[in-house]
Structure formats: structure tokens, C-alpha cells
């Protein structure tokens, strides 16, 4: 068990490799109840959420969701979030470790009456993998298999009231289930029982990290922080400058989206040594950046990492990583490292 954002979280239930492979080939069950949820309601909910996040929340229909970031006035990322449009407002899903900071930030840029931190009342379970949709569908009276990615609907799963969302953080198909915290243990047990024969196993934070990195998904605190602008970590696509005013927009307008201060890249390494957060990226012996995340890819069977490079480093520069004194050659590759097979 490890402490994470105020929660005791299992790093692994069996082994990271076993859990990782289960999600890529069958399915895995994650307890993500540490994630924070904040609900915005009232007449001005749209305006407030729109000013807080860079993506265009106005285009969401009820049941729709989007990924985006909250920026500070300097254009640095306060947190990366998923925003759901609900019947009566918006639910913003935030990182556990950022919860106090985010809630304070939201309070500074709205009125307390407009939002509620519901993180303690809401639990989140994720079922991810090629067999996840069939499994959850079999426990659900409504048609959730036809939900499109980044869409959710209210239903029940194994008799538990749930917001069923076609989202995830693994690169696989599947659902995230937002439920009342009191119902989560029963739902966990039902999913394990129904999924066991299908090869579902519980998965911890370790596999969550190796899966998300293969899928090219960012981790706040490692790949970005309050000093990173969205363009510098490859999240320019979440910035909708045409949508109107939002916090950080004047600062982001000063940047050239195609030549940001830093360049975020995927790299593959020769051999099995793992590049880790904070290790230096080198060109001809000179430091030109840092590794933001790294792991061993169980799917690809070699070492992978993401790195933040000085913005003026040409794309074809030969790179290496200083792994505890050993210099390993690194090749820049497009993200994501892994894309699930079509139709799977």
C-alpha cells in the first residue's frame, strides 16, 4: 500500500505485469475513489466552468464529457480534468493530489454557492479492457454498449445506481462508474464475481501508470505542473482560443502553439533499463531536457518514456538519457506508444 493524495492505495494486487496484461487482453478492475469530483450548478455554471478550463465546455450536450486543463493566469496548468455535462450543471473530475489546491482555485474564481466538493461522497470504479463492455453490459438493464467514447448515462450496475461513463485512462475500451461511496464495496464485489470467469482481476496504481503511459496519457505532477503551459506538454488540442475568455488565455496568446517553450516527446530506449522522472536528456553530452515519465512497456517489450525538451531542439536531434550514470540511446517516436487494435 502507498499513500496517494490522502488515500491508502494498493500499488499492486498481484503483480504490475500480470495486471497490465489482464487489462490489455481481458479486463481489469480499478478503485479510483481517490479522484476528486466537484459539481457546479446554478445559472452561471457554464460561464464559471468555461472560464476555468481551456477546452470548450459549451459544446457539451447532457451526458457528454471532455478532457481539458485548468490554467493559471500565467498559462501554467493547475490540473488536468474531465468535465461532464449533467442535467443541472457540470461535474469536474480532478486529481486527488491536487484537490485542496483545485478547490481553493475554484473558490477564488467563482462563488462558494456555485460549486460543491463531492469527492467524499462519490466513489469511482473503472472496468477496462477488451471484455469490459460486455461485462458491464451484462450487469446493466440499459444499453450502455452503444455509449460513445466520452459519453455517460445514469443507470444501475449490479443493482447499484451509477453514472456509467465510456472513459478511461488505460488506452483500452471500458467504463468508469461513478457511484455513491456507500455502494462502492458492494459494486466492487459484484464486478469481481461476475468478471472473474472472464479473466477480470483487480488492478492497482502500478498498472494504472504503465497502462496510461503506453497509451500516451499525461500524469499531472510528473508530465506537467503549475509552470507547464498546455502547448509545452502536447495538450494544445485542449486549448480553444476561439471560445471566448478564460483564465490564462492572455498568457497563452503570447505563445506560438507550434513552437512552445518546451517540446513534449515520446521516446523509446534501447534495452530494458528504465528512464525515470527527472533524469536528464542529453545531446552530445549536453543536457537538453528531462524525462517526465518512464517505464518498461509490457506490451512492446522495451523501455519507453516521455520527455520535455528545450523548445529550440530540432526534431531530428540525436538524443540519449542519463540513467544513473549510464547513457542510453533514445529515439523519438510518435505518441501514443500503444493504440488498441481497431474493432477490439
Amino acid at each position, binding site marked *: 500500500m502507498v499513500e496517494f493524495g490522502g488515500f491508502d492505495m494498493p500499488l499492486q494486487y498481484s503483480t504490475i505485469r500480470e495486471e497490465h496484461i489482464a487489462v490489455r487482453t481481458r479486463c481489469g478492475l480499478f478503485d479510483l475513489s481517490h479522484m476528486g469530483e466537484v459539481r457546479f450548478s446554478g445559472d452561471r455554471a457554464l460561464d464559471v466552468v468555461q472560464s476555468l478550463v481551456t477546452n470548450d465546455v459549451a459544446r457539451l450536450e447532457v451526458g457528454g464529457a471532455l478532457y481539458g486543463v485548468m490554467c493559471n493566469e500565467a498559462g501554467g496548468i493547475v490540473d488536468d480534468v474531465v468535465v461532464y455535462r449533467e442535467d443541472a450543471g457540470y461535474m469536474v473530475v480532478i486529481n486527488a493530489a491536487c484537490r485542496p489546491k483545485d478547490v481553493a482555485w475554484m473558490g477564488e474564481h467563482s462563488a462558494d454557492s456555485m460549486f460543491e466538493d463531492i469527492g467524499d461522497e462519490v466513489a469511482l470504479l473503472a472496468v477496462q479492457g477488451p471484455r469490459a463492455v460486455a461485462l458491464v453490459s451484462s450487469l446493466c438493464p440499459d444499453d450502455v454498449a452503444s455509449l460513445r467514447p466520452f459519453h455517460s448515462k445514469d443507470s444501475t450496475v449490479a443493482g447499484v445506481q451509477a453514472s456509467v461513463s465510456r472513459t478511461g485512462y488505460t488506452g483500452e475500451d471500458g467504463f468508469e462508474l461513478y457511484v455513491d461511496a456507500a455502494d462502492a464495496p458492494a459494486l466492487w464485489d459484484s464486478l469481481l464475481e461476475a468478471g472473474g470467469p472472464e479473466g477480470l482481476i483487480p488492478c492497482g496504481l502500478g498498472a494504472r501508470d504503465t497502462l496510461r503511459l503506453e497509451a500516451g496519457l499525461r500524469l499531472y505532477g510528473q508530465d506537467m505542473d503549475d509552470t507547464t503551459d498546455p502547448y509545452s506538454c502536447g495538450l494544445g488540442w485542449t486549448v480553444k482560443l476561439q471560445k471566448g475568455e478564460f483564465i490564462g488565455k492572455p498568457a497563452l496568446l503570447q505563445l506560438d502553439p507550434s513552437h512552445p517553450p518546451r517540446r513534449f516527446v515520446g521516446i523509446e530506449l534501447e534495452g530494458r533499463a528504465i528512464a525515470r522522472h527527472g533524469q536528464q536528456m542529453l545531446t552530445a553530452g549536453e543536457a537538453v531536457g528531462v524525462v517526465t515519465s518512464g517505464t*518498461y512497456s509490457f506490451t512492446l517489450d522495451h523501455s519507453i518514456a516521455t520527455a520535455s525538451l528545450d523548445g529550440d531542439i530540432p526534431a531530428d536531434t540525436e538524443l540519449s538519457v542519463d540513467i544513473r550514470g549510464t547513457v542510453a540511446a533514445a529515439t523519438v517516436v510518435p505518441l501514443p506508444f500503444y493504440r488498441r487494435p481497431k474493432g477490439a
Partner: protein
Amino acid sequence: MADLSNYRFTASHEWVRIDGSSATIGISDHAQAQLGDVIFLELPAAGTELKARAKFGAIESVKAASDLYAPVGGVVAEVNAALTDRPELVNSDPYGEGWMLRLDSATDDGGDLLDEAGYTKLVGA
């Protein structure tokens, strides 16, 4: 359970099995469990002279990278080549197939190596 009566342990979780002037080195079951999935080993080449208690290599799992320390001194006679492609043998059989090095001219400076009971007490505490 493996019979560990011939094994001696360091406080840094390596084991050594001494057989005359030859010694075999690996890491403990406790250490492999703490590391989780072993991905990579950095081991010295045959012929390298090791000093007792000095760093001789490194082991990496998904979770962490750790240095390896020689329980005894000696000259590397053989490196477990199977670990290059199957480092997970350290997880599945730490006292058998997951061995790392065989040393010749092993010299035990004695003193602080632990027997099984002593090591169990150390990691159980």
C-alpha cells in the same frame, strides 16, 4: 520453501551460498517481493574482481532501481545469462534459477552476514 541453511544474507538483502572457494550470489525473496516485476539487471562481466560490501551492479523493477552489494569478495566466474532475457526469474525463483553471479576465490570477511533466522528477524521486524 527452499532449504536456506547454506545461505547467508546481507542487511541489504543479497544472499550468498559458499561452496569451498566458490560462491553464488542473488537477492532474497523479501527483496524481490518488495521490488516487484524485475525488468533489468546490470551485472559485472566474468573476470571482474568484487570487493566484499562494495556495489557490484543494479537491479531495476517497474517500481524502482536499486544497487546490488557483494556479500563476499571474489572474482566473477560466471554470470547467469538466463537473466538477460528472463529477469523475472529473480521473482519466480530468487534462491534457485534467479541466481546472479558465481564467484571464484571467494573471500568472506565474516562478521556481519546473517543466517536465515537472523535475516528473517531483520525483515520481519
